[in-house]
Structures are given as C-alpha cells and as structure tokens.
C-alpha cells in the first residue's frame, strides 16, 4: 500500500498539481496537524476518488469528524478504514475507543482485541481494551489489560487513572487511590484524575477534600462532565440536595442531553422526594442513551419512588440484561421492589446472587439481614464481620450499611454487646454525614404548639375543603404506622397511599406550620384542603378512604382539621424505648435526621410527646383517635373494629387478614407487616437496657 504511486489531481492552490498518494496523505496530515481541516479533507477525498476505501484517508477523515464532535460519522469512517487487509493496529484502537464512547462495547472490544493481536505492545490499544472491559463490568479482565499497560509504560498517567477506576470498582479503594495519585504525580494538570480522586474521597466520607479535588478538575477543564456528576454525588452524600442539583444543572447548561448528567439528576430528585420530576428526567436520560445502565437504573429508581413497581422492574431487568457496572445496584433495587410486592423469595434470590458475584456488597447484605433471623453460628455473620474488619476498605456508605446489618444480626442472636458495637459505629458514621441541631428542632416543634393554641384553633375552625376521604396515621417512625395502614388498607373501601409528602409541601409553601397559622384565611384553608384532596384523588383509585401514613404529619396534626374538616387522624403510640431502639437499629432510606444518636433520639421523642399532649387538648374527639401499638398486638380485632368504626366504615373481615393483602409497602417495616402479629416486638428493648442508657436518660426514664 505505501509503495503505490497513483497520481491524484490536487486542486489545493498551494500544492503542486500532481502528487502521489503517499505525498497527498502526508500533506493532508500536515494540514490537519496545523488545524487546516479544509485542505486536509480535500486531499483525503482526492485520494478516495482514486482509491475508494483507502484506509489512511478514511482514518484521517474519521479523526477530523471526531475532533469536530461527530462521533457517529467518525465511527463510520473508521469502520471502513479497518476493512483494509493490512489495517494499521492503531486505527483499530481508535475505532475501539470511539465505539466505547457511543456505548458500542462489544464492537469496541473486538476492535481493541484485533489491535493487540496485531501488535501486542501497542500500549494505547491495551488501554482502550482495559476501559471497555471496565465499562462492560469485566473488571478482572480490565485489571489484567491495564496492569499490562502500566507494565509496558510505567509513566503513562492515563493508564494509571484508568487502572485506578477499575480498582475502585473492584472495591480496592486503597490501591485505586495510589494509582490516581501516581497519575497526578506524572501529570499534575490531569483533570480526569483529580475528578476521580474526588469521587473516591467522597466514597471514603471525606467530602470537603473530595470537593476540593473535583473543583481542581473543573478549574483545569470546566467542561469535564464527570466532575459535575461527582460534585453532585458529594452533595447528595451529605444531603445537600439543592447543591447537588445545582451542579447537575451546571453540567446540563452546556450539555443538555448528557445521559450521565440526566441520570444523576433523576437520582437527586428521587432523594428530594420529587418522583414525578425524577421520572421525566430519567426518561430523557434513557432516550438520550438507551444502552446506558446508569440511565436505566435511574429510571427504575424514579419509577420505584413513584410507586410504579412493574414499570420499575422492567427498567431494572433491562439494566441487568445489559451487564456492565450497574448490575449490582439494579439487582439490589429489583430485590427491594420484589420485597414491597411481597415476593420475598424472588428478592432473596436476587440478593444472594449479588453477594455471590460481589461478596463485598454491603448494600445487598443490609436488606438480606432484614429478611432472615440469625443465630450466633450463622456463617453469614462471619462473612459480614470480615467486611467490617480492618482488612477491607469499604466506601463510606457501604461501611455504614454493613454495621447496621451486623447490628441486626447480633440482636437476633441475642448478643447485645456486639450488636451495639456495630450499631453505635454505623450510627456514628451516618451521623457524620449531615448537620442536625436538636435544640433548634425542640424550639421549632414547640413554636408550632404555641402558634396554634386551643383558642386559635377554635377561631380558625369551620372552614377548609370538606371531604371524609382523608385518613392520617401519625406517630414517630417505627411506632407502628405501617402496621396500622396495612390493617386499614385491607378494608375494601380503603386505599393505603403510603407516606405522602403533600401535607408538608403545602405547609412549607407558607413558610412552615407556625407561619401558616398566621396566614390561614378562609381562602387559604380551602385552597390547601383542595390541593391535598387533588393530590390523593390521583392515588386513591376511587376508594372511600385514603390513608396517608407520613409519620411526621404529627407536627401538623392541629392544622389538618382546619384545612380538611372531614379528615380522620389516628395517632399510634408505642413503648418509647421499643420505638427508639427500632429507629436506632435502622438505616433509613428517607430523611430521619434525629435517629442516629441515642441522646438526640430521646430528645426528639420528648418533643414529640409534648406536641402530642398539646394536640390532645386541642383536637376534637370525633376527628382524633389514639391507638396503642401493644394493644393492637394483644387484641387485633378489638382495635381494628375501633379504628374502622372511627373512620366511619362498616366492618370488613378482610381486615383481620391484613398480612395477606397484596399491596405495596415501602418503609423500613416492609418485612414485618407480611407476618401475622407476634409479641416479639413488645418489650424488645429490655435485654439492651445497658446499651440504651443514653436514650433512657434522655427520655427521662428511671432505671428499670
């Protein structure tokens, strides 16, 4: 090929009229090196006119298309360039990388393999192969390819960075960090490595350092998309969701269809409990990149949050079928949906499969621990203990999860000492990720009661939007709200809507409950009531009653009859220590900032008791019913009849078979309401009295 001497016409003004193909190509390359794309392109086209399919000309055209951002055209040219019998291995390597960028992993892998087959020392091709394998989830193979690059070329900063990514995904965080640092020592202005190191530091819970590193990446390359996604990850991890969204919007402002950015935005919106918006954004992500596991995962999570369980399962199934890096998360999420649907066996199968493939997956161990009963000799305990031990460096969130899983396991096994060692550590790690001020919370809760005293309540009564559909079940988390809802929702005329944020959102729009009291004109009351009714009408499926079991609505209990005079409010109470212990042993998916420190937990409980004592005096008896959780356990039928009568419905025998009801349940209690009632959750705290001293002190209880 290189010896061929075909004459081509050259119409470039500065060039000689006749050039050999080699000369024309050499000139084309020189023009392109100097950024003169037009003469370069003309020369390539002239070569192709004489020799259609000429590999070098096609390759150069492909490189130019790539530089101008047209990856699809570039791939098209490179594919044809690679059909030459003696294709240059570097062309195959370039094709591989472009395929990866468009998500064509299989084709990319094949091209890269051909490249290294032809030239086993071609560093760039091994590197490209390594990152394709990484994206395909073939982490061990990726590790081998990239280790080879580093062996061939120890000062290759790009390879070190890529190797770091593979190690990170393998959970080998320490080694990953070393590789990023080596890359940065070789190339201090390497934006990607700064960004990746930032993401790793975030995994380790060092958010300030993480953000500094990511900032550095943005300073070097303000258009590095991953840096924005990683920055949003840092803010999400410390629950600063507005900041997380700001980063993503910063990315989408210059790359509106970036699939990773859209997927990340959907996840943040899920965390912010804005599932409808999350679904919209996730759908955009999937349409921008139908083969992206991240996009499908985000869509599944958004649909899950929206309550569209079957649709969510479809998205997770697709992500799992794609293979790649998102399989682990997709399977865990699928298990969580299956659990909510009451299909415990399918959920267990998924979780066990994840642990088989990813033995370090604490996010799988945590739900698994909730689904079984442990004895001290259970080998799973040993496997989890290994993860919590000093030999394994887990990401912060994983390290936290495994502590909660172990806490549960040792409580089952009756070892209070060990259980609390893990629970205290897990709660401490969680508590470090956010700011919470117990004094501020106390003042805020008290201010609600002060704003809405009995006199004010009376004065503001008589308005609102009339409807007897709404039923509110309120209480502290873990006090039995899920159980009560499940019992009520087993009635044919009742829909259980789960935990709705609607009432809080409507109140927040006026600056919170205390501010709302002073703003509550008859018009405002009617409007809020109507807005709430519109919200539940979408969910209720035409049933006569719709149960909203958002526990924290206890803060708003006095306001509810003012905006919804027909609503029924059921307050569930449970033994304070049992409730708090249950809170403390759970890693909540939703915001519960007061449960990760025993003293703060106790203080919150007392604030709750105080405001409930206040509501008890304010609320009219025909709107407000109190149910003792322990009484329900003792006498299900008696208490169930009391509640059904209170909400004004005729008796339905289905209520007593509540654990058979097929409906979704999404809270930390999901595995308990699927069982008939047992006494195991009454007085459960007694064996842990010693460990719970900070709590019982804060609750003001006398020593038992």
């Amino acid at each position: 090929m290189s010896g061929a001497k075909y004459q081509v016409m050259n119409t470039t003004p500065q060039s000689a009229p006749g050039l050999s193909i080699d000369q024309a190509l050499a000139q084309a390359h020189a023009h392109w090196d100097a950024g003169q794309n037009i003469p370069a392109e003309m020369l390539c086209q002239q070569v192709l006119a004489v020799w259609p399919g000429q590999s070098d000309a096609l390759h150069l055209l492909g490189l130019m298309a790539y530089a101008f951002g047209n990856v699809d055209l570039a791939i098209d040219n490179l594919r044809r360039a690679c059909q030459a019998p003696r294709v240059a291995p570097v062309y195959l390597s370039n094709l591989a990388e472009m395929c990866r960028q468009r998500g064509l992993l299989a084709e990319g892998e094949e091209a890269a393999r051909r490249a290294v087959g032809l030239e086993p020392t071609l560093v760039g091709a091994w590197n490209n192969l390594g990152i394709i394998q990484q994206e395909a989830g073939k982490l061990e193979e990726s590790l081998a390819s990239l280790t080879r690059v580093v062996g061939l070329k120890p000062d290759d900063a790009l390879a070190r960075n890529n190797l770091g990514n593979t190690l990170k995904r393998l959970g080998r965080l320490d080694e990953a960090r070393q590789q990023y640092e080596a890359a940065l020592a070789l190339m201090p202005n390497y934006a990607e490595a700064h960004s990746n190191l930032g993401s790793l530091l975030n995994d380790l819970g060092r958010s300030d350092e993480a953000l500094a590193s990511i900032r550095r990446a943005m300073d070097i390359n303000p258009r590095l998309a991953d840096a924005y996604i990683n920055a949003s990850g840092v803010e999400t991890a410390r629950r600063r969701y507005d900041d997380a969204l700001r980063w993503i919007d910063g990315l989408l402002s210059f790359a509106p269809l970036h699939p990773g950015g859209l997927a990340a935005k959907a996840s943040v919106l899920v965390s912010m409990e804005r599932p409808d918006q999350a679904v919209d954004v996730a759908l955009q992500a999937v349409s921008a990149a139908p083969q992206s596991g991240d996009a499908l995962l985000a869509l599944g999570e958004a649909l899950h949050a929206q309550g569209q369980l079957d649709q969510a399962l479809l998205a997770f199934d697709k992500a799992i079928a794609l293979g790649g890096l998102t399989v682990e998360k997709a399977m865990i999420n699928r298990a969580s949906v299956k659990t909510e649907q009451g299909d415990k066996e399918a959920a267990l199968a998924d979780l066990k499969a994840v642990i088989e493939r990813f033995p370090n997956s604490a996010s799988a161990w945590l739900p698994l621990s909730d689904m079984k009963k442990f004895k001290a000799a259970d080998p799973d305990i040993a496997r989890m203990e290994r993860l919590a031990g000093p030999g394994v460096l887990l990401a912060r969130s994983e390290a936290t999860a495994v502590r909660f899983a172990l806490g549960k396991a040792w409580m089952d096994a009756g070892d209070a000492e060990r259980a609390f060692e893990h629970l205290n550590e897990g709660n401490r790690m969680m508590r470090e990720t956010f700011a919470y001020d117990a004094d501020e919370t106390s003042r805020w809760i008290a201010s609600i009661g002060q704003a809405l005293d009995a006199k004010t309540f009376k004065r503001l009564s008589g308005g609102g939007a009339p409807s007897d559909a709404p039923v509110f079940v309120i209480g502290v988390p873990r006090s039995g709200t899920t159980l009560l809802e499940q019992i009520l929702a087993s009635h044919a005329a009742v829909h259980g809507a789960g935990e709705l944020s609607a009432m809080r959102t409507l109140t927040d729009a006026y600056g919170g409950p205390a501010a709302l009291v002073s703003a509550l004109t008859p018009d405002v009351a009617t409007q809020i009531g109507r807005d709430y009714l519109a919200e539940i009408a979408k969910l209720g499926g035409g049933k006569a009653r719709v149960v909203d079991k958002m526990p924290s609505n206890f803060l708003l209990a006095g306001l509810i009859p003012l905006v919804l005079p027909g609503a029924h409010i059921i307050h569930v109470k449970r033994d304070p220590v049992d409730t708090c212990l249950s809170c403390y042993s759970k890693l909540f998916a939703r915001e519960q900032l007061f449960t990760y420190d025993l003293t703060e937990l106790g203080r919150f409980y007392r604030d709750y008791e105080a405001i409930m004592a206040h509501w008890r005096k304010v609320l009219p008896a025909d709107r407000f019913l109190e149910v003792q959780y322990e009484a329900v356990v003792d006498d299900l039928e008696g208490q169930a009849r009391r509640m059904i009568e209170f909400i004004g419905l005729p008796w339905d025998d289905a209520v007593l078979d509540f654990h058979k009801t097929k409906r979704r349940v999404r809270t930390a209690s999901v595995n308990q309401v699927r069982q008939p009632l047992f006494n195991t959750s009454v007085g459960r705290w007694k064996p842990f009295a010693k460990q719970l001293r900070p709590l019982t002190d804060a609750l003001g209880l006398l020593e038992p």
Partner: protein
Amino acid sequence: MSQVELEARNLIAQDRLAEAEALLRQALASGSGAASLWRMLGAAIRGQGRVAEARPIQELLVDAMPGDLSMRFDLAETLLVLGEFERGWREYHYRYQMPHTTRIERKVQKPRWDGRPIPGKTLLIHDEQGYGDTFQFMRMVPWAKARSGARVVLEINHEMHSLAARMGGFDAITLRGQLPPTFDEHCEMMSLPMAMGLKLEDLPGSPMPYLTADPERLALWRDRLKDLPRPLVCLVWAGRPTHLNDARRSMSLPMLAPLASSGATFLSIQKGPTEGLATEPPEGMTLVNLSPEIRDFEDTAAILTVADLLISVDSSPVHLAGALGRPVWVMLPFIPDWRWLMHREDTPWYPAHRLFRQASPGDWDGVVRKMVQALAERSPPGKTGQRRGSVKPPR
C-alpha cells in the same frame, strides 16, 4: 423565560441600564435567583461604568457554573479591563468556546505551548481575527522566541506580511492558509499573554517601537505630503462595521467638525464603507482625502510615520501607529474594550498614546471638546504648523 428576565433583556437592549439594574436588584433582593438574572445584573452594572462592582457578581457566577464559558468570557473582559491580568488571561482562554465562536476555533493537533523553554523544538505562533489585535500583540513574538528557545515560525495574515517580516524576532514566516513547516507546539498570538504570564509592568516591552515603515513607501509619501502645512493630523472615525461593539466604538466625520478650529491639516486615512464621507469635509476643515490612495497597511504605516498625529476611534490604525511609535489620540466609548483599561488617560501598551474617554455613554461631543482644547494647548495660535510635532507622552 420569566417576565422579569424578558423585561430586563429589553431594557438592556435599549441601553436603559439603570432601569434594568433596579428591576433586577428587586428580583434578586433575597440574595438568590436564576443565574441568567445575575448575569444581566452584572452586565447592567458594568455597562454603567461600575466595572469593579460587576466583578464579584461575575466571579460568583463562574464559581457556581464553571462550565458556562460565556460567563467566563464576561469575567475575562472585566478582569482585563481592571488590569487583573493573571486570572484575566486565563479566563480569556475560553474565547473560542462560546456558542458563536466554537465554529472558528482552529483545531491544531499539536499541544499548546505553556510558556516553558522548549529548545530544539519548533513553535508555531499564529495570528487570529482582528488586525488591531495582531499589531498590538505581535510584539510578543520575539519575547516568545527568547523565552522558549525554540525555532519560531510566525503565521500571519497576508495583509500584514511585509510589516511582520521586517519586524524580525522569529525564524520563519508563513501565511494564513498555507501549509506551515512541521512544528512541535503552537500558540495563538492572543494566548501568548496567558502562556507567558504577561503582567502590566512588562509593558510596553522592548523593542519599542517594534514596527517600521517601508523606506521606499516612506519616500513616496514624504513627497506626496511635503507641501501640506503642518501639523498633519490623520483621522479615522469608524472601525470595521462587523465588529460586535462597532455601534459604540465608531462615530462619524461631521462630529469631528469642531477640530477644524485648530487650523491643522487633516488627512483622512479612513478605510471601509464610510471613507467616501471624506469628500465632504465639515465646514472650515482642511481635509485631504488620502483614503483612495491607500493600497495597503504599508501605505498607512508610511503616512502615519510622516504625519504628526493620528486622531482615531478604537480601530486597527491606532495599533499600527502605536507599534510604529507614532503619537495617537484615541477616542474611546464609555465602556472601552478591555485593552484600554479604565479611567486612565495613557496606556501601558503605547507610550505616545493619549486616551479621550466618553464621560457618559454615547458622549462623543465631550470627547471632541476635550480634543479641541488639547489641540489648542499643543499648538498655540500663531505658531501653527511650523514645528515637526511630537506629542509629549502623558503622565
């Protein structure tokens, strides 16, 4: 787009900046709001001449949205006009990555020179769009050669070829569009300040002047102008009409009428669509229309060398005259291009320049009044035209 945003945009388009500012301040009173509103607030404040006050807003925007390169360019212009060169040049680096400029970015496939020595390597320095930019920044080519120790190839537009060739300070010259010799690294001419960390105190640098007129042309023009009574004052009243800010930087010949009272001989060296106006000079002004006789920058350079003074709006002859070391009075709009800095009457770039700034937006009358006075001080009545003038550098 929100109602406020729409209204503010309209007000800014109509130059009603104080009203736009009031509207935006009200909308942003809580301290938070859409980035687009903050950006307009920055523009409204800056447009009223309070550039330093606009700076923190623009810095915050860049901090919050590092990937919005248009905002970075806003900040670059603000920092540079305030003389904050270090970060200014860095932000200026994004000039080809805005929606309207990405198409013209030249995708050179070799690394950009970072200012470090690269002896034995070849460095390609290429000029960009504006002639004025190239006249102003080509002084850095010899500096870059000294700093890099490289073999320097200068790529320049066809029109300035011979002037650049005489300047020297590089190893080879090539013209825009031609295939340059093989090179290892490159740098846009306007990226040299970033690469080399140019500071205000490095200016004007040496040699100064760095361009010279062609001796043959000079002889021709000496002859052509020898009978005209001095002082000879060249006039340019408009820049290239396609320039983004041309409406603000250009004026018109009739506005310069009051200069006639000085009794100087005026020479029109205006080029472009408005050069024909020179055939109808304002009442009482002695204006010799040289425009049709000017074939290229070599003619302009020779005329400027023979003449005593150039009075011009912010356009390329200002830089050509400066590079030749000739005196210039520059007429500047209220908010000038970043290269003229704020408030001062001189410029570090050219020692013989004197700047006449608008005191309020659009106020060319005030600028002309000040120049009439300055002309009178420069050549007292009765002594007109007899000395070979040189303008004392300001300061």
